């Protein structure tokens, strides 16, 4: 297998985006196509070795055919090409006219994107925005995985709370509950960090379950701060042989609400209801 790559530019050396590059195997006639990115580059990976015919097409440019490009597998084959602008036609309206008149009939030839009245802003790629989206998805994937991992010690913390608040003199169950709570808090912090730091995409209006998911964060976020503070107070009172009293009594209820909100947030983006 080999790689065939290159860059398509216009006569001035500017990259030609959205050009279609088609490679056809001379040996078996199999064809593959790719579209150039905003920098005019294209790439075919895993091409069977052999000779290929190439065809480069782009709206507003003359089609270019290359009769032979050999992929030998030793190193990537680089085919950089320059496209010449098409000769202007008298029947085709100019871009300004098309912008004012979407879908307007233009010529008897096959229609092009400009015939549909699409603006340059709509048709041109934005690599910066794509990079932002990639980063956002990457961070939210970690957020999602960390959220799932956090669920395990969270459930264990809730389960061990049943013994931690009892009347027994021993502190082992309380210590275990505290240790699990600490792990949960740390993992929760990492989970929250990846959600908070994930880049926002300008112009996006939030719709759907994500709104509920974020609303729940306003409950479990403060709850995750308050719960260990109240827990530390309750722990201290217990260790002093006192009955848990005062505001520390809220540790349990706050923890339950926090865990419930966390679970609801998780379910809201996982299961349709």
């Amino acid at each position: 297998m080999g790689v065939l790559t290159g860059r398509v530019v216009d006569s001035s050396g500017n990259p030609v985006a959205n050009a279609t590059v088609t490679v056809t195997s001379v040996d078996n006639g199999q064809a593959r196509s790719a579209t150039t990115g905003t920098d005019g580059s294209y790439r075919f990976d895993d091409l069977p070795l052999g000779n290929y015919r190439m065809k480069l097409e782009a709206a507003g440019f003359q089609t270019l055919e290359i009769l032979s490009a050999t992929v030998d597998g030793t190193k990537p084959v680089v085919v950089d090409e320059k496209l010449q602008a098409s000769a202007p036609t008298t029947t085709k309206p100019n871009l300004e006219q098309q912008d004012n008149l979407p879908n307007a009939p233009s010529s008897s030839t096959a229609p092009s994107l400009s015939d549909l009245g699409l603006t340059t802003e709509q048709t041109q790629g934005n690599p910066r925005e794509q990079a932002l989206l990639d980063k956002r998805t990457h961070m939210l994937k970690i957020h999602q995985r960390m959220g799932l991992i956090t669920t395990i010690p969270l459930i264990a913390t809730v389960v061990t709370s049943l013994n931690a608040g009892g009347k027994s003199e021993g502190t082992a169950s309380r210590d275990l509950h505290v240790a699990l709570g600490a792990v949960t808090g740390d993992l929760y912090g990492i989970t929250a960090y990846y959600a908070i730091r994930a880049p926002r995409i300008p112009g996006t209006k939030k719709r759907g379950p994500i709104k509920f998911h974020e609303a729940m964060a306003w409950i479990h976020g403060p709850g995750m701060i308050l719960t260990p503070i109240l827990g530390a107070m309750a722990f201290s009172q217990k260790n002093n042989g006192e009955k848990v009293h005062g505001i520390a009594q809220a540790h349990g209820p706050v923890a339950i609400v926090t865990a419930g909100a966390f679970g609801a947030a998780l379910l809201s983006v996982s299961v349709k209801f």
Partner: protein
Amino acid sequence: MNKKILIAFLLVTLPTFAADSQWVLKQSTLTYHVSHPLHESEGVSHAARGKGVCHNGQCDFLIAVTVKSFDSGDSNRDLHMVQVTRGAEFPIVTVRTRLPESAASSATINADLEIQFAGQTAQYKKVPFKVETQGGETHITGTIPATLTDFKIDPPSLLTMPVKNEIPVRVDMTWRSQ
């Protein structure tokens, strides 16, 4: 006699070389369907633009729609969809097909489609569409059997479970001849 033959020939052949006609997409609903073990979701776009140009009995159609115009009712999912399909880098999905002019009067058509999406081109042969013509408008419905691998898209996952490879796209379009 020769003149009569010539006139008869012209009368017979004239319709073939008649003035070009064109088709314009008036309304459209494109719906992609994604299956995940935990739930199903759909994204809908009404923003497609299309045009068909007929010449010598053959019509070349181009339909284009922006990736961002698909709405699944969940902004988070839509942004993820745009990311995995590289919709910011390749913002337009285009569908090209060539059909005989007579297709508008058929009950069904089998179209060969060339779809550019996510920086890739995929061809679908003989995709069946139902055709209904009424009052100068032609209504076309069908489903394009698209898959993620056709466009080299990594299947997005939720809770570490990936979506199915099949992403059928339901097409519902109304065209008007000009």
